[in-house]
């Protein structure tokens, strides 16, 4: 059977793209083509923006209570299709089914939080700011927003933004990842099912040309982006040049600091999950384990043993702990980094390059890989590998550990494993990273908190999720009143 050609969703209708250019979407476990994604034309971008713009006025006049009810309906639809959504994520991304279920759960949580919009969007006022004069601050929707999202959480990341945007009364355009666009198609089937007014939510497939056209269109008011640092920087600058607001979540190189007093039996599983979960393709993934003092030897031994026990294979198999990486290109890049690490003098303790997965000869598999004797100057310590590769760095004390963290241009996440409240407090106070974990491997903010980030990991001021999202997707209007 020929793979499905994905459609755009414009103005409440599914539409075939007029574009002749298509990319293959592959199942990373088998390399089989599961869909074809069109690279839509700029004319189609103009139409999708026009549809969103025309829908805006009617939608902003819809009461927040009604908008919230759509969120409840979307949540219900997602719960109903929970397992289907998870399976689609596994097939297009490769992560294991439990991780995909986790992604669906986190996606739904954002819809649930956005359903609180009648409370979240309430303004504030103060009487008698001067004699007989009152002042009100009103939250109002802005207009048309769009998001450009990555392959690694193809269902969830658009939902860091879209539910809040439309609950606030804006209209929305999603440009899914061209590597993993299928789960957004399924999400839009559910959005179609809840019967939002035409043009409130729209989806357009494509590549950089679509993104540029969105940003150059004067009817688009803002952009949310999650992806790499070079692209994030480019889009942030371009959005500013075109007078749009933007929030651009970018790359990472996250450190997991392990103090001598850490409880290793509990810390090691958390580190495993952080580094090797989703085959290391998370912007919150731990990449460098910074072992402080004499914790180094026992920690190294336990990490290698635990990583050796992880089964690699097709994510749909529930006995598997780690799936493939997303594309052949990713696989080649990760292998390249492993070779570079060896060349730079790091010691390869566990080599995932030779992993064999029975019955999956074409899959993009790579096993857990661990380097030790890693120094901060090495490429494997500085650059984002985005794969299941752990580097272990040895330092003498806490201050040196912070130097390793701060030597990176990134500031996405960092974690500390300790039993000391003093070190935990110091870590929280001093570390320049947006998402911190204390005895937590993946410091992933829940939907009602902002997904933070600093330095080259985030461009903008307001983040996705939570109250930040409400601020991002609204204007504050101040009304000063006096009655004669």
């Amino acid at each position, binding site marked *: 059977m020929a793979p499905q050609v994905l459609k755009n969703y414009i103005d409440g209708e599914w539409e075939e793209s007029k574009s002749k250019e298509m990319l293959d979407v592959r199942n990373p476990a088998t390399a089989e083509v599961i869909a074809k994604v069109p690279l839509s034309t700029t004319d189609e971008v103009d139409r999708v923006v026009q549809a969103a713009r025309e829908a805006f006025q009617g939608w902003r006049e819809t009461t927040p209570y009604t908008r919230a009810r759509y969120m409840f309906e979307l949540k219900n639809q997602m719960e109903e299709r929970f397992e289907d959504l998870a399976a689609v994520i596994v097939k297009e991304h490769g992560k294991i089914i439990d*991780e995909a*279920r986790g992604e669906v*759960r986190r996606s739904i949580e954002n819809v649930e939080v956005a359903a609180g919009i009648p409370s979240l969007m309430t303004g504030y006022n103060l009487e008698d700011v001067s004699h007989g004069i009152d002042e009100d601050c009103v939250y109002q929707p802005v207009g048309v927003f769009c998001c450009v999202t990555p392959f690694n959480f193809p269902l969830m990341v658009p939902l860091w933004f879209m539910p809040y945007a439309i609950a606030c009364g804006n209209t929305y355009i999603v440009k899914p990842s061209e590597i993993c666009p299928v789960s957004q198609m399924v999400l839009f089937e559910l959005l179609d099912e809840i019967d939002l007014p035409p043009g409130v939510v729209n989806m357009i497939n494509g590549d950089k040309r679509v993104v540029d056209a969105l940003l150059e269109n004067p009817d688009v008011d803002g952009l949310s982006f999650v992806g790499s640092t070079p692209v994030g920087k480019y889009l942030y600058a371009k959005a500013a040049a075109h007078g749009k607001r933007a929030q651009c979540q970018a790359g990472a190189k996250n450190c997991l600091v392990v103090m001598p007093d850490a409880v290793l039996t509990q810390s090691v599983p958390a580190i495993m*999950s952080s580094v090797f979960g989703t085959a290391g393709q998370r912007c919150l993934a731990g990449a460098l384990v910074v072992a402080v003092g004499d914790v180094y030897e026992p920690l190294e031994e336990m990490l290698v043993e635990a990583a050796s026990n992880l089964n690699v294979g097709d994510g749909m198999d529930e*006995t598997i*702990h780690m799936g493939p990486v997303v594309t052949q290109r990713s696989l080649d890049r990760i292998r390249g980094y492993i070779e570079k690490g060896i060349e730079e003098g790091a010691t390869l303790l566990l080599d995932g390059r030779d992993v064999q997965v029975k019955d999956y000869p074409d899959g993009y598999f790579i096993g857990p890989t661990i380097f030790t004797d890693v120094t901060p100057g090495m490429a494997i310590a500085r650059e984002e590998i985005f794969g299941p590769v752990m580097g272990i760095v040895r330092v003498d004390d806490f201050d040196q550990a912070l130097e390793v963290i701060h030597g990176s241009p990134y500031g996405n996440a960092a974690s500390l494993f300790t039993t000391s409240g003093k070190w935990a407090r110091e870590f929280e106070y001093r570390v320049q990273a947006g998402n911190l974990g204390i005895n937590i491997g993946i410091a992933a903010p829940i939907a009602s908190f902002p997904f933070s980030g600093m330095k080259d990991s985030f461009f903008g001021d307001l983040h996705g999720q939570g109250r930040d999202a409400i601020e991002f997707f609204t204007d504050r209007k101040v009304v000063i009143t006096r009655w004669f």
Partner: protein
Amino acid sequence: MELATFGAIMTFALELEQRAAVFYEEAAHGSLQEPFSDLAKMAHKRAKRIERTRREGIAEMILEPITGMNGEDYLVELVPGRDEIERLSQAIRLAETSIRFYQDAAEKIPVKEVARTCQRMATESEKQKAELLRLQV
């Protein structure tokens, strides 16, 4: 089958409840009609609870291997025949297996909410076993 992940344990639990529901439905006749119909209804309810727990409990990603649980240790033959005593014996073995399975799962799964659900399932199975033993007398 090694139950080495959260998903594998929850899927096994779901299948156990679904098999239990089918067994009780088919075995609900004669003097066991009423109690087994109730147990079938309960098994459906428990299956839904497991599905919900799988959906809810997964928010805390669990990657580390879970060791020491094998599906083979919790297999129970369910062939609802005509003999009432045999049907009752199978139901008791099913309840005993469920108790053991859910107690083991509660110990292995490091997410409190999920462990609590497993414990609740085990407690319910204990009550079911007591009720079935009473019917045996």
